[in-house]
């Protein structure tokens, strides 16, 4: 005997009438060529109407085997490759790698080199955040900020180009210090930029911070708690927006960050809006660091004494820095030869992307785009 209610309609059972749309879960493919995925990210969405039930990320489209390449290059030869991971913050990548190898070699970069490193790395953080803001706002539907941020980012790229000849994949640092001395007028250019950019950041804020559409699209969207962040290993502005005051520049200072005064901005709600506010404040704090550095930059050598053929003693090292996107770590194993035995890159974007699923569960499809933007991922780094 079958269940007598099996033939009754939903109306007779007192249940809402089910259409094919809400009775079936819908599987929709977003990407890998979607303009809002910041590269080639494919997200499989499980939907109930507009509501997201779950997601699965398919990554690897940009996999180039960077870690394998490292095992077949000398320490110096691998240096330019790290620029190609997070290609909007190449300077940070280079800093992390050079410092890791310096630790293995027991070499200390000279003070002047450290100042140059800090100035360029912070400029790059600013450039990375500007690019993030422009594309993130564009994803949500605000087109104007993109033009504003790209206009101002250009000034940073000009300084990079004058310093080392490249705009994006800079290869600015070498193991042991910096290869290039600053060009004539470097300090003037940086100071000019420091006066130029603060009103521009206020301008971005004027466009967005109190904009009603922006508030609607970002407040309470993609919330993540501090506990979830720690469990999922999420770092960088995303962690700080959830209220954890943690920045490697303060917690375990590298280069000469301990010499500068700056604040770590934090958020409260851990939503997209707070992450926006944290990054805006980080831009201003970067400017503060650059101003201190450029005023106090000492004279002296820019390169430590490093052997021409680098053979670090047998051993291993983990060194991490606060990249614009979170904790960027290098784990390097040396077997005493000229080539690293193993290089492991701990990319912030890869780990942060894992949080996408819990951040969008229960949200709307349009919010997925907002959350991918707010995580600030670069697929070159996710896939390596």
């Amino acid at each position, binding site marked *: 005997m079958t269940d007598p209610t099996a033939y009754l309609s939903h109306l007779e059972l007192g249940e809402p009438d089910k259409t094919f749309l809400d009775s079936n879960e819908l599987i929709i493919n977003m990407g890998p060529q979607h303009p809002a995925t910041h590269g080639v990210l494919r997200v499989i969405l499980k939907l109930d109407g507009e509501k997201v039930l779950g997601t699965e990320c398919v990554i*690897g489209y940009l996999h180039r085997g960077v*870690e394998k390449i490292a095992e077949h290059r000398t320490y110096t030869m691998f240096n330019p490759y790290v620029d190609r991971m997070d290609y909007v913050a190449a300077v940070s990548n280079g800093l992390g790698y050079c410092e890791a190898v310096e630790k293995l070699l027991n070499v200390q970069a000279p003070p002047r080199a450290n100042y140059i490193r800090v100035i360029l790395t912070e400029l790059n953080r600013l450039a990375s955040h500007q690019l993030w803001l422009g594309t993130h706002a564009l994803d949500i539907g605000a087109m104007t900020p993109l033009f504003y941020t790209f206009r101002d980012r250009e000034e940073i790229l000009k300084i990079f180009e004058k310093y080392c000849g490249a705009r994006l994949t800079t290869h600015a640092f070498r193991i042991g210090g910096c290869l290039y001395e600053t060009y004539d007028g470097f300090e003037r250019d940086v100071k000019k930029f420091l006066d130029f950019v603060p009103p521009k950041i206020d301008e971005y804020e004027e466009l967005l911070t109190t904009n009603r559409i922006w508030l609607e699209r970002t407040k309470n969207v993609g919330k993540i708690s501090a506990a979830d962040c720690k469990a999922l290993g999420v770092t960088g502005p995303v962690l700080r927006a959830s209220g954890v005051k943690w920045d490697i520049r303060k917690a375990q200072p590298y280069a000469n960050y301990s010499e500068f005064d700056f604040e770590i901005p934090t958020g409260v709600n851990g939503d997209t809006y707070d992450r926006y506010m944290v990054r805006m404040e980080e831009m201003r704090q970067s400017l503060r660091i650059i101003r201190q550095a450029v005023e106090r930059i000492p004279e002296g050598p820019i390169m430590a004494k490093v052997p021409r053929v680098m053979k670090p003693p047998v051993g291993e*090292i983990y060194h991490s820095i606060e990249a614009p996107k979170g904790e960027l*770590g290098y784990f390097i194993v040396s077997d005493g030869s000229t080539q690293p035995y193993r290089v*492991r890159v701990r990319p912030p974007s890869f*780990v942060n992307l894992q949080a996408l699923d819990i951040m969008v569960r229960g949200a709307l499809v349009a919010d997925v785009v907002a959350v991918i933007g707010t995580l600030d991922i670069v697929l070159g780094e996710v896939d390596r």
Partner: protein
Amino acid sequence: MHEANTYLGQNYLVLDASITAEALRILRDEEQFDYCVDLTATHYPTREKQFELIWILYSFARNERIRVKTMIADGESFPSSVEIWPTTNWLEREVYDMFGIRFDGHPDLKRILLPDGWKGYPLRKDYGIIQQDQEWVQINLGIESGQ
């Protein structure tokens, strides 16, 4: 315990594979290492136990890092630590993808960076730098070779 040591100011533990899973749990629950920074592996083809698994842990409360290392043989699997640190989900998948080390109890152990049908584990030392899965490339990309 085999070894507790410091190199270049960084602490690490080398543990026997049989006690490592329990040690990881203790490190989180009792020693406050609540953030698993990274999980990775290294291949040493000449050793009897070829693979070294490395966890890099961080404690927010103590502002301290520690590395936990253990050796396992080829073909051996290791208990998954997804329950201890959910972040290891993708990290374990990457280790599986690159080294072929299986993690017992992982909710969805499959390749992450390479395509699902790929044969071979690229970060093993016996895998050549220009080596590839010719068959996969020919079937799926319709070209003779990726080189």
